[in-house]
Protein backbone atom coordinates (compact mmCIF):
# COMPACT_ATOMS: atom_id res chain seq x y z
CA UNK A 1 0.00 0.00 0.00
CA UNK A 2 2.82 2.36 0.90
CA UNK A 3 4.49 1.44 -2.38
CA UNK A 4 1.37 2.31 -4.36
CA UNK A 5 1.12 5.67 -2.60
CA UNK A 6 4.73 6.54 -3.34
CA UNK A 7 4.23 5.41 -6.93
CA UNK A 8 1.29 7.77 -7.26
CA UNK A 9 3.25 10.66 -5.73
CA UNK A 10 6.14 10.12 -8.11
CA UNK A 11 3.75 10.05 -11.06
CA UNK A 12 2.22 13.37 -10.00
CA UNK A 13 5.70 14.85 -9.67
CA UNK A 14 6.65 13.58 -13.11
CA UNK A 15 3.52 15.05 -14.65
CA UNK A 16 4.36 18.38 -13.06
CA UNK A 17 7.88 18.40 -14.49
CA UNK A 18 6.58 17.54 -17.97
CA UNK A 19 3.86 20.18 -17.77
CA UNK A 20 6.34 22.82 -16.62
CA UNK A 21 8.75 21.90 -19.42
CA UNK A 22 6.21 22.27 -22.19
CA UNK A 23 4.53 25.34 -20.75
CA UNK A 24 7.14 27.60 -19.21
CA UNK A 25 10.33 27.04 -21.20
CA UNK A 26 11.14 29.81 -23.66
CA UNK A 27 11.64 28.12 -27.05
CA UNK A 28 8.98 29.45 -29.39
CA UNK A 29 7.65 26.87 -31.75
CA UNK A 30 5.89 29.35 -34.02
CA UNK A 31 9.03 31.41 -34.50
CA UNK A 32 11.05 28.29 -35.22
CA UNK A 33 8.64 27.11 -37.92
CA UNK A 34 7.90 30.44 -39.60
CA UNK A 35 11.12 32.36 -39.21
CA UNK A 36 11.62 35.92 -38.02
CA UNK A 37 9.91 37.81 -40.82
CA UNK A 38 6.34 37.19 -39.71
CA UNK A 39 4.24 39.56 -37.64
CA UNK A 40 3.38 38.93 -33.98
CA UNK A 41 -0.26 38.13 -34.84
CA UNK A 42 0.80 35.18 -36.98
CA UNK A 43 2.80 33.77 -34.08
CA UNK A 44 -0.23 34.00 -31.88
CA UNK A 45 -2.38 32.10 -34.32
CA UNK A 46 0.16 29.27 -34.28
CA UNK A 47 0.48 29.21 -30.50
CA UNK A 48 -1.02 26.25 -28.66
CA UNK A 49 -3.97 27.33 -26.50
CA UNK A 50 -2.86 27.60 -22.89
CA UNK A 51 -4.23 24.90 -20.61
CA UNK A 52 -4.06 24.94 -16.81
CA UNK A 53 -2.10 22.21 -15.00
CA UNK A 54 -5.08 20.50 -13.42
CA UNK A 55 -7.01 20.44 -16.65
CA UNK A 56 -3.97 19.07 -18.49
CA UNK A 57 -3.50 16.38 -15.83
CA UNK A 58 -7.19 15.46 -15.87
CA UNK A 59 -7.06 15.00 -19.64
CA UNK A 60 -3.77 13.09 -19.45
CA UNK A 61 -5.31 10.64 -17.00
CA UNK A 62 -8.01 10.02 -19.61
CA UNK A 63 -5.26 9.47 -22.21
CA UNK A 64 -6.20 12.68 -23.98
CA UNK A 65 -2.98 14.53 -24.76
CA UNK A 66 -4.65 16.79 -27.24
CA UNK A 67 -4.18 17.04 -30.95
CA UNK A 68 -0.71 16.72 -32.41
CA UNK A 69 0.26 20.23 -33.43
CA UNK A 70 1.08 18.99 -36.87
CA UNK A 71 -1.13 16.92 -39.13
CA UNK A 72 -3.96 17.53 -36.63
CA UNK A 73 -4.11 13.88 -35.59
CA UNK A 74 -5.03 12.69 -32.14
CA UNK A 75 -1.82 12.12 -30.13
CA UNK A 76 -3.11 8.98 -28.40
CA UNK A 77 -4.19 7.31 -31.64
CA UNK A 78 -0.82 8.30 -33.16
CA UNK A 79 0.93 6.50 -30.32
CA UNK A 80 -1.41 3.50 -30.27
CA UNK A 81 -0.71 2.80 -33.93
CA UNK A 82 3.05 2.72 -33.41
CA UNK A 83 3.59 1.17 -30.01
CA UNK A 84 3.60 -2.42 -31.32
CA UNK A 85 6.73 -2.14 -33.43
CA UNK A 86 8.67 -0.41 -30.65
CA UNK A 87 7.60 -2.92 -28.02
CA UNK A 88 8.59 -5.87 -30.18
CA UNK A 89 11.95 -4.29 -30.96
CA UNK A 90 12.65 -3.53 -27.28
CA UNK A 91 11.77 -7.06 -26.15
CA UNK A 92 13.92 -8.62 -28.88
CA UNK A 93 16.84 -6.35 -27.98
CA UNK A 94 16.52 -7.15 -24.29
CA UNK A 95 16.49 -10.89 -25.04
CA UNK A 96 19.59 -10.51 -27.23
CA UNK A 97 21.39 -8.49 -24.57
CA UNK A 98 20.69 -11.24 -22.03
CA UNK A 99 21.85 -14.02 -24.36
CA UNK A 100 25.05 -12.21 -25.37
CA UNK A 101 26.05 -11.33 -21.83
CA UNK A 102 25.21 -14.77 -20.40
CA UNK A 103 27.32 -16.45 -23.10
CA UNK A 104 30.30 -14.12 -22.58
CA UNK A 105 30.18 -14.25 -18.78
CA UNK A 106 29.83 -18.01 -18.68
CA UNK A 107 32.78 -18.43 -21.05
CA UNK A 108 34.88 -16.12 -18.91
CA UNK A 109 33.99 -17.81 -15.62
CA UNK A 110 33.83 -21.45 -16.68
CA UNK A 111 37.05 -21.50 -18.67
CA UNK A 112 39.26 -19.11 -16.79
CA UNK A 113 42.11 -18.31 -19.12
CA UNK A 114 43.67 -15.12 -20.50
CA UNK A 115 41.72 -15.40 -23.74
CA UNK A 116 38.22 -15.60 -22.25
CA UNK A 117 38.87 -12.89 -19.68
CA UNK A 118 40.28 -10.61 -22.39
CA UNK A 119 37.16 -11.36 -24.45
CA UNK A 120 34.96 -10.35 -21.51
CA UNK A 121 36.99 -7.19 -20.78
CA UNK A 122 37.06 -6.07 -24.42
CA UNK A 123 33.42 -6.81 -25.17
CA UNK A 124 32.10 -5.13 -22.04
CA UNK A 125 34.22 -2.00 -22.55
CA UNK A 126 33.26 -1.82 -26.25
CA UNK A 127 29.61 -2.30 -25.47
CA UNK A 128 29.66 0.43 -22.83
CA UNK A 129 31.46 2.81 -25.20
CA UNK A 130 29.60 2.03 -28.42
CA UNK A 131 26.27 3.84 -28.69
CA UNK A 132 23.53 1.91 -30.49
CA UNK A 133 23.12 4.43 -33.29
CA UNK A 134 26.78 4.26 -34.30
CA UNK A 135 26.66 0.46 -34.26
CA UNK A 136 23.52 0.68 -36.43
CA UNK A 137 25.28 2.87 -38.98
CA UNK A 138 28.27 0.52 -38.98
CA UNK A 139 26.01 -2.51 -39.54
CA UNK A 140 24.26 -0.74 -42.42
CA UNK A 141 27.66 0.08 -43.94
CA UNK A 142 28.85 -3.51 -43.70
CA UNK A 143 25.73 -5.59 -44.38
CA UNK A 144 23.74 -3.33 -46.71
CA UNK A 145 26.25 -1.09 -48.48
CA UNK A 146 29.30 -3.34 -48.75
CA UNK A 147 27.81 -6.85 -48.78
CA UNK A 148 24.23 -6.14 -49.84
CA UNK A 149 22.94 -8.95 -47.61
CA UNK A 150 20.20 -7.26 -45.59
CA UNK A 151 17.86 -4.41 -46.44
CA UNK A 152 19.04 -1.08 -44.98
CA UNK A 153 15.60 -0.27 -43.64
CA UNK A 154 11.90 -0.86 -43.77
CA UNK A 155 9.57 -2.87 -41.58
CA UNK A 156 7.24 -5.78 -42.17
CA UNK A 157 4.35 -6.20 -39.76
CA UNK A 158 4.49 -9.34 -37.63
CA UNK A 159 0.94 -10.44 -38.51
CA UNK A 160 1.66 -10.12 -42.23
CA UNK A 161 4.90 -12.06 -42.36
CA UNK A 162 6.52 -13.20 -39.09
CA UNK A 163 9.81 -14.27 -40.70
CA UNK A 164 10.14 -11.09 -42.73
CA UNK A 165 9.33 -9.06 -39.62
CA UNK A 166 12.12 -10.69 -37.62
CA UNK A 167 14.52 -10.24 -40.56
CA UNK A 168 13.70 -6.54 -40.73
CA UNK A 169 14.24 -6.23 -36.98
CA UNK A 170 17.51 -8.22 -36.93
CA UNK A 171 19.99 -5.38 -37.38
CA UNK A 172 18.19 -2.86 -35.12
CA UNK A 173 17.78 -5.49 -32.40
CA UNK A 174 21.45 -6.48 -32.61
CA UNK A 175 22.54 -2.84 -32.33
CA UNK A 176 20.30 -2.09 -29.36
CA UNK A 177 20.97 -5.46 -27.74
CA UNK A 178 24.74 -5.24 -27.98
CA UNK A 179 24.84 -1.62 -26.81
CA UNK A 180 22.90 -2.59 -23.68
CA UNK A 181 24.71 -5.86 -22.99
CA UNK A 182 27.73 -4.14 -21.39
CA UNK A 183 25.83 -3.32 -18.22
CA UNK A 184 24.46 -6.87 -18.05
CA UNK A 185 27.95 -8.33 -18.57
CA UNK A 186 29.51 -6.33 -15.75
CA UNK A 187 26.61 -7.03 -13.40
CA UNK A 188 26.37 -10.77 -14.22
CA UNK A 189 30.14 -11.16 -13.93
CA UNK A 190 30.34 -9.70 -10.44
CA UNK A 191 27.17 -11.48 -9.25
CA UNK A 192 28.17 -14.88 -10.62
CA UNK A 193 31.68 -14.53 -9.24
CA UNK A 194 30.24 -13.80 -5.80
CA UNK A 195 27.83 -16.75 -5.94
CA UNK A 196 30.34 -19.23 -7.38
CA UNK A 197 32.60 -18.90 -4.35
CA UNK A 198 29.77 -19.90 -1.98
CA UNK A 199 29.63 -23.37 -0.38
CA UNK A 200 26.37 -24.42 -2.06
CA UNK A 201 28.06 -24.19 -5.45
CA UNK A 202 30.91 -26.35 -4.20
CA UNK A 203 28.33 -28.90 -3.03
CA UNK A 204 26.55 -28.84 -6.37
CA UNK A 205 29.84 -29.37 -8.17
CA UNK A 206 30.86 -32.11 -5.74
CA UNK A 207 27.60 -33.91 -6.56
CA UNK A 208 28.91 -34.00 -10.12
CA UNK A 209 26.30 -31.70 -11.65
CA UNK A 210 27.01 -30.35 -15.11
CA UNK A 211 28.41 -26.82 -15.13
CA UNK A 212 25.36 -25.68 -17.10
CA UNK A 213 23.02 -26.68 -14.30
CA UNK A 214 25.26 -25.11 -11.66
CA UNK A 215 25.28 -21.82 -13.53
CA UNK A 216 21.70 -21.59 -14.72
CA UNK A 217 19.77 -23.26 -11.91
CA UNK A 218 21.82 -23.01 -8.74
CA UNK A 219 23.72 -19.72 -9.00
CA UNK A 220 21.22 -18.27 -11.49
CA UNK A 221 18.31 -18.40 -9.06
CA UNK A 222 20.32 -16.48 -6.48
CA UNK A 223 21.12 -13.58 -8.79
CA UNK A 224 17.52 -13.44 -10.05
CA UNK A 225 16.68 -10.38 -7.93
CA UNK A 226 19.33 -8.06 -9.28
CA UNK A 227 18.84 -9.37 -12.83
CA UNK A 228 15.06 -8.74 -12.70
CA UNK A 229 15.59 -5.17 -11.52
CA UNK A 230 18.20 -4.55 -14.20
CA UNK A 231 15.97 -6.08 -16.89
CA UNK A 232 13.05 -3.87 -15.92
CA UNK A 233 15.23 -0.74 -15.99
CA UNK A 234 16.90 -1.72 -19.26
CA UNK A 235 13.60 -2.44 -20.96
CA UNK A 236 12.49 1.13 -20.26
CA UNK A 237 15.88 2.53 -21.30
CA UNK A 238 15.87 0.60 -24.58
CA UNK A 239 12.25 1.52 -25.19
CA UNK A 240 12.89 5.23 -24.64
CA UNK A 241 16.28 5.50 -26.32
CA UNK A 242 15.56 3.65 -29.54
CA UNK A 243 14.69 6.87 -31.40
CA UNK A 244 17.93 7.12 -33.38
CA UNK A 245 18.00 3.42 -34.23
CA UNK A 246 14.37 3.37 -35.40
CA UNK A 247 15.11 6.48 -37.44
CA UNK A 248 18.12 4.84 -39.15
CA UNK A 249 16.21 1.71 -40.12
CA UNK A 250 12.92 3.57 -40.78
CA UNK A 251 10.90 1.41 -38.41
CA UNK A 252 7.47 2.96 -37.86
CA UNK A 253 7.63 2.90 -34.07
CA UNK A 254 7.55 5.43 -31.27
CA UNK A 255 11.21 6.35 -31.81
CA UNK A 256 10.56 7.42 -35.37
CA UNK A 257 7.54 9.34 -34.06
CA UNK A 258 9.86 11.11 -31.58
CA UNK A 259 12.17 12.19 -34.41
CA UNK A 260 9.25 13.56 -36.45
CA UNK A 261 7.87 15.31 -33.39
CA UNK A 262 11.26 16.95 -32.76
CA UNK A 263 11.52 18.20 -36.33
CA UNK A 264 8.04 19.73 -36.07
CA UNK A 265 8.47 21.03 -32.50
CA UNK A 266 5.37 19.02 -31.66
CA UNK A 267 5.20 19.48 -27.88
CA UNK A 268 1.92 17.59 -27.18
CA UNK A 269 3.32 14.43 -28.78
CA UNK A 270 6.67 14.73 -26.99
CA UNK A 271 4.90 15.28 -23.65
CA UNK A 272 2.72 12.23 -24.21
CA UNK A 273 5.76 10.09 -25.07
CA UNK A 274 7.62 11.17 -21.93
CA UNK A 275 4.54 10.52 -19.78
CA UNK A 276 4.06 7.07 -21.32
CA UNK A 277 7.70 6.08 -20.77
CA UNK A 278 7.75 7.38 -17.18
CA UNK A 279 4.48 5.65 -16.41
CA UNK A 280 5.77 2.31 -17.67
CA UNK A 281 9.07 2.80 -15.82
CA UNK A 282 7.34 3.50 -12.51
CA UNK A 283 4.79 0.70 -12.89
CA UNK A 284 7.47 -1.81 -13.92
CA UNK A 285 9.77 -1.01 -11.02
CA UNK A 286 6.90 -1.18 -8.52
CA UNK A 287 5.76 -4.49 -10.02
CA UNK A 288 9.35 -5.73 -9.71
CA UNK A 289 9.50 -4.78 -6.04
CA UNK A 290 6.17 -6.44 -5.29
CA UNK A 291 7.03 -9.74 -7.03
CA UNK A 292 10.42 -9.85 -5.33
CA UNK A 293 8.77 -9.30 -1.96
CA UNK A 294 6.31 -12.10 -2.69
CA UNK A 295 9.14 -14.43 -3.67
CA UNK A 296 11.12 -13.68 -0.54
CA UNK A 297 8.07 -14.23 1.62
CA UNK A 298 7.60 -17.62 0.01
CA UNK A 299 11.24 -18.57 0.52
CA UNK A 300 11.10 -17.15 4.03
CA UNK A 301 14.10 -14.84 3.94
Amino acid sequence: MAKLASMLLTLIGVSFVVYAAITYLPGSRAQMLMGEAVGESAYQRMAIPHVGYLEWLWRAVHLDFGVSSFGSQDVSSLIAGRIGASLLLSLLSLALALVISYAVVRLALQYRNPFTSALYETLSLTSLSLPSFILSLALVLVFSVALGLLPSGGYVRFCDNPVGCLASLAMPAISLGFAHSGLFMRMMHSSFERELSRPYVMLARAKGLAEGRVFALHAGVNILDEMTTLCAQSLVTIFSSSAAVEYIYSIPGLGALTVTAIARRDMPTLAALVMLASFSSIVLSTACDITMDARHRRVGT
Partner: protein
Amino acid sequence: MRKTAVGMVILVILSLAFVILPPFLEDAYEVDMSRRLSCPSSGHPFGTDTLGRDVLARVVTGGRISLSVGFLVTLMTLVTALPSALACLHDGIVDSVLMRICDILKALPSTLLAILLSVAMGTGVVGIVIALTAVNIPQTARLIRARARAVDSSLFVMAKRAMGVENWRILTGTILPHVLPSLLVQCAFVFSSSILAEAALSFIGAGLPAAVPSWGGILAEGRSVIFEGWWLVVFPSLFILLTVIALNLVADGIEER
Protein backbone atom coordinates in the same frame (compact mmCIF):
# COMPACT_ATOMS: atom_id res chain seq x y z
CA MET B 1 46.36 2.75 -12.89
CA ARG B 2 47.77 1.90 -16.33
CA LYS B 3 44.26 2.17 -17.77
CA THR B 4 43.83 5.67 -16.31
CA ALA B 5 47.16 6.76 -17.79
CA VAL B 6 46.31 5.43 -21.26
CA GLY B 7 42.89 7.08 -21.17
CA MET B 8 44.32 10.40 -19.98
CA VAL B 9 47.00 10.40 -22.72
CA ILE B 10 44.36 9.83 -25.43
CA LEU B 11 42.18 12.59 -23.99
CA VAL B 12 45.03 15.10 -23.77
CA ILE B 13 46.16 14.38 -27.34
CA LEU B 14 42.58 14.73 -28.62
CA SER B 15 41.89 18.01 -26.84
CA LEU B 16 45.26 19.48 -27.86
CA ALA B 17 44.52 18.50 -31.47
CA PHE B 18 41.10 20.14 -31.31
CA VAL B 19 42.60 23.36 -29.94
CA ILE B 20 45.72 23.61 -32.11
CA LEU B 21 44.53 22.26 -35.45
CA PRO B 22 41.69 24.59 -36.61
CA PRO B 23 43.92 27.47 -37.91
CA PHE B 24 45.78 25.02 -40.15
CA LEU B 25 42.61 23.54 -41.62
CA GLU B 26 40.01 24.85 -44.01
CA ASP B 27 37.06 26.83 -42.72
CA ALA B 28 34.52 24.34 -41.41
CA TYR B 29 31.68 26.47 -42.79
CA GLU B 30 33.05 27.06 -46.32
CA VAL B 31 30.56 25.73 -48.88
CA ASP B 32 31.82 24.67 -52.33
CA MET B 33 29.25 22.76 -54.36
CA SER B 34 31.76 21.90 -57.13
CA ARG B 35 33.51 19.39 -54.89
CA ARG B 36 30.54 17.92 -53.04
CA LEU B 37 30.90 14.38 -51.68
CA SER B 38 34.46 13.85 -52.88
CA CYS B 39 36.36 10.83 -51.57
CA PRO B 40 39.11 11.18 -48.98
CA SER B 41 42.24 12.48 -50.75
CA SER B 42 45.45 14.25 -49.80
CA GLY B 43 43.68 17.64 -50.02
CA HIS B 44 40.74 16.48 -47.88
CA PRO B 45 41.94 13.56 -45.76
CA PHE B 46 38.39 12.84 -44.52
CA GLY B 47 36.61 13.80 -47.80
CA THR B 48 33.92 16.46 -48.17
CA ASP B 49 30.22 16.50 -47.28
CA THR B 50 27.05 17.16 -49.29
CA LEU B 51 27.78 20.89 -49.41
CA GLY B 52 31.46 20.39 -50.27
CA ARG B 53 32.69 21.32 -46.79
CA ASP B 54 35.89 19.72 -45.53
CA VAL B 55 34.94 16.86 -43.19
CA LEU B 56 38.24 16.92 -41.27
CA ALA B 57 37.71 20.57 -40.37
CA ARG B 58 34.12 19.84 -39.35
CA VAL B 59 35.09 16.82 -37.27
CA VAL B 60 37.77 18.84 -35.45
CA THR B 61 35.47 21.81 -34.82
CA GLY B 62 32.69 19.42 -33.81
CA GLY B 63 35.07 17.71 -31.40
CA ARG B 64 35.85 21.02 -29.78
CA ILE B 65 32.12 21.66 -29.31
CA SER B 66 31.42 18.11 -28.09
CA LEU B 67 34.22 18.20 -25.54
CA SER B 68 33.14 21.66 -24.34
CA VAL B 69 29.55 20.45 -23.93
CA GLY B 70 30.77 17.40 -22.02
CA PHE B 71 33.02 19.51 -19.81
CA LEU B 72 30.33 22.12 -19.09
CA VAL B 73 27.75 19.46 -18.24
CA THR B 74 30.20 17.70 -15.90
CA LEU B 75 31.11 20.97 -14.20
CA MET B 76 27.50 22.09 -13.77
CA THR B 77 26.42 18.67 -12.52
CA LEU B 78 29.24 18.71 -9.98
CA VAL B 79 28.51 22.25 -8.83
CA THR B 80 24.83 21.46 -8.21
CA ALA B 81 25.02 17.84 -7.08
CA LEU B 82 27.91 18.08 -4.61
CA PRO B 83 26.46 20.79 -2.30
CA SER B 84 22.99 19.25 -2.42
CA ALA B 85 24.42 15.83 -1.58
CA LEU B 86 26.42 17.23 1.34
CA ALA B 87 23.33 19.10 2.55
CA CYS B 88 21.64 15.69 2.75
CA LEU B 89 24.31 14.28 5.07
CA HIS B 90 21.93 14.22 8.01
CA ASP B 91 18.25 13.32 8.06
CA GLY B 92 15.94 16.27 7.94
CA ILE B 93 13.57 18.24 5.80
CA VAL B 94 16.29 19.25 3.30
CA ASP B 95 17.26 15.63 2.83
CA SER B 96 13.76 14.29 2.28
CA VAL B 97 12.71 17.12 -0.05
CA LEU B 98 15.83 16.93 -2.22
CA MET B 99 15.73 13.14 -2.41
CA ARG B 100 12.05 13.19 -3.40
CA ILE B 101 12.92 15.57 -6.24
CA CYS B 102 15.72 13.19 -7.24
CA ASP B 103 13.28 10.26 -7.26
CA ILE B 104 10.94 12.13 -9.56
CA LEU B 105 13.73 13.13 -11.97
CA LYS B 106 15.05 9.57 -11.89
CA ALA B 107 11.67 8.15 -12.86
CA LEU B 108 11.78 10.19 -16.07
CA PRO B 109 13.64 8.26 -18.79
CA SER B 110 16.83 10.26 -19.31
CA THR B 111 16.94 10.30 -23.11
CA LEU B 112 13.36 11.45 -23.47
CA LEU B 113 13.69 14.05 -20.70
CA ALA B 114 16.78 15.48 -22.40
CA ILE B 115 14.94 15.61 -25.73
CA LEU B 116 11.92 17.29 -24.17
CA LEU B 117 13.99 19.92 -22.33
CA SER B 118 16.29 20.62 -25.25
CA VAL B 119 13.42 21.05 -27.71
CA ALA B 120 11.39 23.12 -25.25
CA MET B 121 14.31 25.51 -24.77
CA GLY B 122 14.89 25.87 -28.49
CA THR B 123 17.78 23.69 -29.60
CA GLY B 124 21.20 25.22 -29.01
CA VAL B 125 24.31 24.88 -26.86
CA VAL B 126 22.68 26.44 -23.78
CA GLY B 127 19.57 24.29 -24.08
CA ILE B 128 21.50 21.08 -24.49
CA VAL B 129 23.87 21.79 -21.60
CA ILE B 130 20.97 22.52 -19.25
CA ALA B 131 19.01 19.50 -20.48
CA LEU B 132 21.92 17.10 -19.99
CA THR B 133 22.78 18.59 -16.59
CA ALA B 134 19.22 18.06 -15.39
CA VAL B 135 19.41 14.45 -16.53
CA ASN B 136 22.69 13.77 -14.71
CA ILE B 137 22.06 15.50 -11.38
CA PRO B 138 19.82 12.91 -9.64
CA GLN B 139 22.13 9.93 -10.07
CA THR B 140 25.25 11.92 -9.15
CA ALA B 141 23.64 13.47 -6.07
CA ARG B 142 22.39 10.08 -4.84
CA LEU B 143 25.77 8.47 -5.33
CA ILE B 144 27.74 11.17 -3.51
CA ARG B 145 25.15 11.23 -0.72
CA ALA B 146 25.42 7.47 -0.21
CA ARG B 147 29.25 7.58 -0.14
CA ALA B 148 29.35 10.62 2.16
CA ARG B 149 26.88 9.02 4.56
CA ALA B 150 28.92 5.84 4.69
CA VAL B 151 32.06 7.82 5.55
CA ASP B 152 30.15 10.01 8.01
CA SER B 153 29.11 7.02 10.11
CA SER B 154 32.59 5.51 10.23
CA LEU B 155 34.65 5.28 13.39
CA PHE B 156 37.35 7.77 12.44
CA VAL B 157 34.79 10.52 11.79
CA MET B 158 33.20 9.74 15.13
CA ALA B 159 36.64 10.02 16.72
CA LYS B 160 37.19 13.41 15.11
CA ARG B 161 33.80 14.57 16.40
CA ALA B 162 34.72 13.41 19.88
CA MET B 163 37.99 15.32 19.63
CA GLY B 164 35.93 18.44 19.02
CA VAL B 165 36.95 19.13 15.41
CA GLU B 166 34.50 21.56 13.80
CA ASN B 167 31.92 20.22 11.41
CA TRP B 168 33.10 21.97 8.25
CA ARG B 169 36.65 20.82 8.95
CA ILE B 170 35.49 17.20 9.08
CA LEU B 171 33.49 17.80 5.92
CA THR B 172 36.32 19.26 3.84
CA GLY B 173 39.27 17.51 5.48
CA THR B 174 37.96 14.00 6.05
CA ILE B 175 34.73 13.24 4.24
CA LEU B 176 35.53 14.95 0.93
CA PRO B 177 38.87 13.17 0.33
CA HIS B 178 37.18 9.83 0.99
CA VAL B 179 34.37 10.60 -1.43
CA LEU B 180 36.81 11.82 -4.10
CA PRO B 181 37.52 8.52 -5.95
CA SER B 182 33.85 7.71 -6.54
CA LEU B 183 33.30 11.37 -7.40
CA LEU B 184 35.99 11.19 -10.11
CA VAL B 185 34.56 7.97 -11.54
CA GLN B 186 31.13 9.56 -11.65
CA CYS B 187 32.56 12.67 -13.36
CA ALA B 188 34.17 10.53 -16.07
CA PHE B 189 30.87 8.73 -16.49
CA VAL B 190 28.88 11.97 -16.76
CA PHE B 191 31.47 13.32 -19.23
CA SER B 192 31.31 10.31 -21.54
CA SER B 193 27.56 9.86 -21.33
CA SER B 194 26.93 13.52 -22.11
CA ILE B 195 29.21 13.36 -25.15
CA LEU B 196 27.23 10.34 -26.33
CA ALA B 197 23.91 12.01 -25.51
CA GLU B 198 24.91 15.20 -27.33
CA ALA B 199 25.84 13.18 -30.42
CA ALA B 200 22.59 11.19 -30.25
CA LEU B 201 20.48 14.31 -29.73
CA SER B 202 22.17 16.20 -32.57
CA PHE B 203 21.74 13.09 -34.72
CA ILE B 204 17.96 13.07 -34.35
CA GLY B 205 17.69 16.86 -34.57
CA ALA B 206 17.14 17.67 -30.89
CA GLY B 207 20.68 18.86 -30.21
CA LEU B 208 22.72 21.50 -31.97
CA PRO B 209 21.32 23.21 -35.10
CA ALA B 210 22.35 21.57 -38.38
CA ALA B 211 24.62 24.48 -39.39
CA VAL B 212 26.86 24.07 -36.33
CA PRO B 213 29.43 21.33 -36.92
CA SER B 214 28.90 18.51 -34.42
CA TRP B 215 29.68 14.80 -34.50
CA GLY B 216 26.01 13.86 -34.31
CA GLY B 217 25.12 16.36 -37.03
CA ILE B 218 27.77 15.04 -39.44
CA LEU B 219 26.52 11.50 -38.77
CA ALA B 220 22.94 12.55 -39.52
CA GLU B 221 24.10 13.94 -42.85
CA GLY B 222 26.08 10.76 -43.47
CA ARG B 223 23.01 8.63 -42.79
CA SER B 224 21.12 10.22 -45.66
CA VAL B 225 23.96 9.60 -48.13
CA ILE B 226 25.27 6.35 -46.63
CA PHE B 227 25.37 4.62 -50.03
CA GLU B 228 27.52 7.37 -51.58
CA GLY B 229 29.71 8.70 -48.79
CA TRP B 230 30.92 6.21 -46.20
CA TRP B 231 33.53 8.69 -44.92
CA LEU B 232 30.81 10.94 -43.49
CA VAL B 233 29.80 8.08 -41.18
CA VAL B 234 33.13 6.44 -40.40
CA PHE B 235 35.28 9.37 -39.24
CA PRO B 236 32.94 11.05 -36.73
CA SER B 237 32.05 7.60 -35.35
CA LEU B 238 35.73 6.79 -34.80
CA PHE B 239 36.26 10.04 -32.92
CA ILE B 240 33.20 9.52 -30.71
CA LEU B 241 34.36 5.98 -29.92
CA LEU B 242 37.93 7.03 -29.17
CA THR B 243 36.82 9.78 -26.79
CA VAL B 244 34.31 7.61 -24.96
CA ILE B 245 36.68 4.63 -24.68
CA ALA B 246 39.36 6.95 -23.27
CA LEU B 247 36.92 8.28 -20.64
CA ASN B 248 35.74 4.78 -19.75
CA LEU B 249 39.36 3.64 -19.36
CA VAL B 250 39.99 6.52 -16.96
CA ALA B 251 36.92 5.55 -14.92
CA ASP B 252 37.78 1.82 -14.90
CA GLY B 253 41.34 2.60 -13.82
CA ILE B 254 40.25 4.72 -10.86
CA GLU B 255 37.64 2.16 -9.85
CA GLU B 256 40.11 -0.75 -9.82
CA ARG B 257 42.65 1.05 -7.71
